[in-house]
């Protein structure tokens, strides 16, 4: 574990990524205490440019709402949706991949065809259709994103399990009569964990991008302010008020960038062999 942190902190991308993520989490958790007002509330006249009024440092939008407050409350939605939908994808993808890789044969064939099918469908289009039909809410968004992003997990886990199940310690467990579920859960999966963690960190980033794209199209939860919604709302007045569109986009960019950097750092720390070969 100490070795892990040392490698992680030695890679510059890992450090920058961690700093951005920690900052985003602190803002998401603590920010609303400094902004007790709802981000939907009108606090000033509309279209206050940024850096002109101390009370609304990033200006106001077309309805006089505080852009900074929106950014801070939006951080909650982005991070939450990113994390939970990735968890959903893991809950679907890990067991499917593990079962396919462990049992092989027909089971593997069937499950992998199923996975390929889901991978062929254009994922963003499917997410749009799902959220539109289930009606936009934080639950439908999380479900839709989770549902379109599990296939890479299943494929990765399958590959790992496939190579691990022939190892001697797994054979030993089989000989001692352990149940299949126990072997998969206790013997194989812990050893397949590192690449899954790397993939998961990149998936959180993709999920944040997906969520912001959905809410940009008007498929966000109508009760929760989010960065994508803010960009979408600023779009019609971009000629008069650039800041309404620019700031939330920067927020999305930074969080996704941070998570990608963490993914790279994790990759260096967890799969040292792979990363040295890679670059």
């Amino acid at each position, binding site marked *: 574990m100490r070795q892990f942190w040392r490698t992680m902190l030695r890679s510059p991308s890992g450090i920058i990524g961690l700093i951005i993520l920690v900052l985003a989490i602190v803002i998401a958790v603590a920010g609303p205490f400094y902004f007790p007002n709802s981000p939907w509330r009108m606090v000033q006249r509309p279209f206050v440019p940024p850096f002109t009024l101390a009370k609304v440092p990033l200006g106001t939008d077309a309805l006089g709402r505080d852009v900074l407050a929106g950014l801070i409350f939006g951080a909650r939605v982005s991070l939450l949706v990113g994390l939970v939908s990735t968890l959903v994808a893991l809950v679907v993808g890990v067991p499917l991949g593990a079962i396919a890789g462990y049992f092989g044969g027909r089971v593997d064939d069937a499950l992998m065809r199923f996975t390929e099918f889901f991978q062929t*469908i*254009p994922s963003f289009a499917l997410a749009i259709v799902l959220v*539109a039909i289930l009606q936009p809410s934080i639950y439908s968004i999380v479900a839709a994103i989770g549902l379109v992003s599990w296939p890479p997990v299943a494929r990765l886990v399958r590959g790992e399990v496939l190579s691990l199940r022939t190892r001697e310690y797994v054979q030993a467990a089989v000989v001692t009569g352990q149940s299949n579920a126990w072997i998969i859960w206790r013997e194989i999966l812990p050893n397949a964990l590192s690449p899954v963690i790397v993939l998961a960190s990149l998936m959180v980033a993709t999920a944040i*991008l997906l969520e912001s794209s959905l809410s*940009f*199209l008007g498929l966000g939860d109508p009760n929760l302010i989010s960065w994508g919604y803010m960009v979408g709302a600023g779009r019609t007045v971009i000629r008069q008020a650039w800041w309404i569109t620019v700031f939330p*986009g920067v927020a999305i*960019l930074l969080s*996704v*960038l941070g998570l990608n950097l963490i993914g790279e750092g994790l990759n260096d720390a967890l799969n040292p062999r792979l990363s040295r070969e890679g670059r």
Partner: protein
Amino acid sequence: MLSFIAQRVVKGVIVLLAIIVLNFFLIRLAPGDPAVVMAGEAGASDQIFVAQLREKFGLDRPLPEQLLIYVKGIASLDLGFSFRQQAPVAKLIAERLPATLLLTLTAFAISLGLGILFGVLAARFAGTFLDTAITVLALIFYATPLFWIALIAILLFSVWADWLPSFGYETVGAGYTGLRHALDVGAHLVMPAATLGLFFMATYTRMTRASMLEVKRLDFVKTALAKGLRDGIILRRHVLRNALLPVVTLAGVHAGTLVGGAVLTETVFAWPGIGRLMYDALIQRDYNLLLGVFVVSSAMVLIFNLVTDLVYRLVDPRIEYAS
């Protein structure tokens, strides 16, 4: 080769059928009784009319039979009727498809061409300032939301600099013909294609760079070096050719993302393609149209995957045609 193509086409058709079945059940998930919704949209919602609609669309039959009717309809290119637009869904999509193909294929060509170029440059000059600059930029564009960079491009090149038109497919009412028209469409295409391609360009740059550096250390490259071949030849013939394989695979995998990205790009630039159509359908909650676009874009992705599979086999002669 032919049997390989036949095999892949059959597989594609099976996947398409599965998507159609999925689509059928998604329609049933949509809120409200389809007949009632349709009746309301047709402007007359009394009991007899609803019953008539039910019979007309076979909604009074058992579910498996309905599914059969639906699949038959799609097989004869009937994707249903859009009551909001008062036109058959298939006709609406057919009108919009060329614009989307133009946009996505241009974006794809730009992103693959420039992505490989930048990746090769970064790998060739690994460790120098050029490499760092390319890597950092690729990392940033890889994290940039598509719809946002499109808006920033409008802000920079249309609002502030006034170089490029910010929306549409052509200058409305200009009545250009021939070359003037092509140039006009081209000017409208620059920003949508460039912003749609940016994310993919970043991906291909990263992939090409990593893949080149990996291949560079392999034994056959050392052999080529030992034989005294010139650096340029080794880079082109030995390294690049092998390094491109994973990039082509990735390009195939990305087809779906490209089509999905077109929804955002076309929405921002008011580009009259099926992505914009999907957005309109979404805003108007026109489920028939929405799901029609979904089926067609899935079919597009399937065709694209088939083509990249063929290209892959052309690039890499080691792979057998009958897999």
